[in-house]
């Protein structure tokens, strides 16, 4: 379990102090994939670096498996870091080493014998599907291949945790998907707890179990991905999750309802039924469906007729177990 308690990070500069993190607390449970989403400059990268103390928080406590990292010595910290792998947006592979040499690197640091390190590197190359690239140098690999090697390297010492700092931001959508699939497999098959930092909602949708939304150095929202996705509370979350929805809700007159479909409700023709059974005409302003965690989620914004039939519609929706919320 990773626990961050009241983390504050200030940077001193000539113009004064900049607050990168403002009293951030969160808990990452074992076995989950935890997402931290926010716009650039929100403090995401600083936050993830506070977990393994690449950045030392100005105030607050960082605990991993109950051990307070902010209170231990350098030697012990180095040992703990071996249990927390990390991958980066720019891959950060050693350019002068082969793919296999890169994977062996953390093993060398940990003092693993050459023979054992080679065997382990072979296993990992297999895991990430790049066995034939063992002797290639990073300059000979594509972005997706580099990130796979970086993942293999981060897993070399069998860490319990894996931190991903914008790991797919430099990759195209198809490659992003394949990397996300790999991360998910690592989580399910190897039981590695993963923290994902991203500015793309797509990434959170695809792999995360829970998500925290970071805005202006603070966590403004946190919860299960399906909850945050269905009913984003904060402005920033709405903006990240459904930018079109905000725009669609802005225009036009009349009452607007935002409907959220999940599971079976997403697959039945609710709106047609609504029109037939209640005899009201609704105007659809926005509609979209997404698959999260294997379940279908849909958003729809409808505009209601003004003449007092609102109650009927509400009752109908409640009957059919469609969640909804009035938008102003």
């Amino acid at each position, binding site marked *: 379990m990773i626990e961050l308690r009241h983390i504050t990070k200030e940077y001193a500069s000539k113009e004064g102090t900049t607050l990168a993190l403002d009293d951030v607390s969160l808990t990452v449970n074992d076995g989950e994939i935890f997402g931290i989403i926010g716009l650039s400059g929100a403090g995401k990268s600083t936050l993830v670096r506070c977990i393994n103390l690449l950045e030392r928080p100005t105030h607050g406590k960082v605990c991993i498996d109950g051990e307070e990292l902010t209170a231990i010595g350098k030697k012990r910290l180095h040992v703990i870091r071996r249990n*927390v792998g990390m991958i*980066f947006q720019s891959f950060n592979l050693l350019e*002068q080493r082969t793919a296999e040499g890169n994977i062996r690197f*953390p093993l060398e640091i940990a003092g693993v014998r050459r023979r054992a390190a080679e065997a382990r590197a072979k296993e990992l190359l297999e895991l990430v599907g790049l066995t034939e690239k063992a002797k290639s*140098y990073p*300059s*000979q690999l594509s972005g*997706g*291949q580099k990130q796979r090697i970086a993942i293999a390297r981060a897993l070399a010492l069998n860490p319990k945790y894996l931190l991903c700092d914008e790991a797919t931001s430099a990759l195209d959508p198809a490659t992003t998907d394949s990397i996300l699939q790999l991360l998910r497999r690592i989580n399910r098959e190897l039981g590695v707890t993963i923290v994902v930092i991203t500015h793309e909602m797509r990434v959170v949708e695809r792999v995360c179990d829970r998500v925290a939304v970071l805005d202006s150095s603070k966590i403004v929202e946190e919860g299960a991905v399906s909850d945050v996705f269905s009913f984003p509370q904060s402005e920033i979350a709405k903006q990240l999750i459904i930018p079109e929805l905000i725009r669609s809700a802005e225009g036009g007159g009349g009452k607007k309802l935002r409907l959220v479909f999940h599971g079976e409700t997403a697959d039945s023709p609710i709106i047609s039924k609504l029109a037939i059974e209640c005899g009201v005409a609704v105007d659809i302003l926005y509609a979209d469906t997404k698959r999260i965690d294997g379940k279908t989620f849909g958003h729809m914004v409808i505009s209601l007729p003004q003449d007092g039939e609102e109650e009927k519609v509400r009752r109908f929706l409640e009957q059919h177990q469609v969640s909804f919320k009035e938008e102003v």
Partner: protein
Amino acid sequence: MSRLFIQLGAEGFLLGVLETLYMTVVSTAAAYVIGLPVGVLLRITDKDGLRPMPWLNRIVGFLVNILRSIPFIILIVALIPVSRAIVGTSIGNGAMIFMLIVAAAPYVARMVESSLKEVDGGVIEAARSMGAGTFTIIWKVYLPEARPSLIVGAVISTVTVLGYSAMAGTIAGGGLGAIAVTQARPSNAEDVIWLCVALIVIIVQVIQELGMLLARKTDRRLRSGGRKKKSSDGADLKTTETNS
């Protein structure tokens, strides 16, 4: 052909070449023994380094700058008593090597520092995230990753030291510089001067070419020729097919 030219003969010039090479190689190597650690120190104690120590960085940087700003010919004169105290003599090739080391070490330190600055900060961060300590990062990340640049720096340093070594004549040292300046110049033996020039040019060329070749050969970033480098996951299959 001048009398001096005949008097020196092939052996005389060969001795000059060997003395020049001897002074250059020994003092450059020794300058690296001192300059490499100092360069590493400058890099890691820098404000964005692994172990920021601003005061130490400033003191060492200041000493390096002072030594670097003294013209070599003046440094020679200034170092005469120091050389006598340390090496036991202030004349000849031994004293010259001492002076060359004093002049080259700070130069090398700056060369090394700038090569290490080229190493991407992200790679250092990755190594830190794996639990690598300062020493491991220097040994396994900074130096290997900067290798091509360090080799280029070594070539430039060697050529610079070779140029300095031509002033050995001023303190009764040997080498091609001494032949040209202290023997040929007073007796107006222009053919000797020009042969010395030609020999020095050849030596510099050889060092330069060999060094650059080594730097290129050991740089893994350039290994694949332009086009193949960008091959995507799918294109690899085709490459294999054409090869077989």
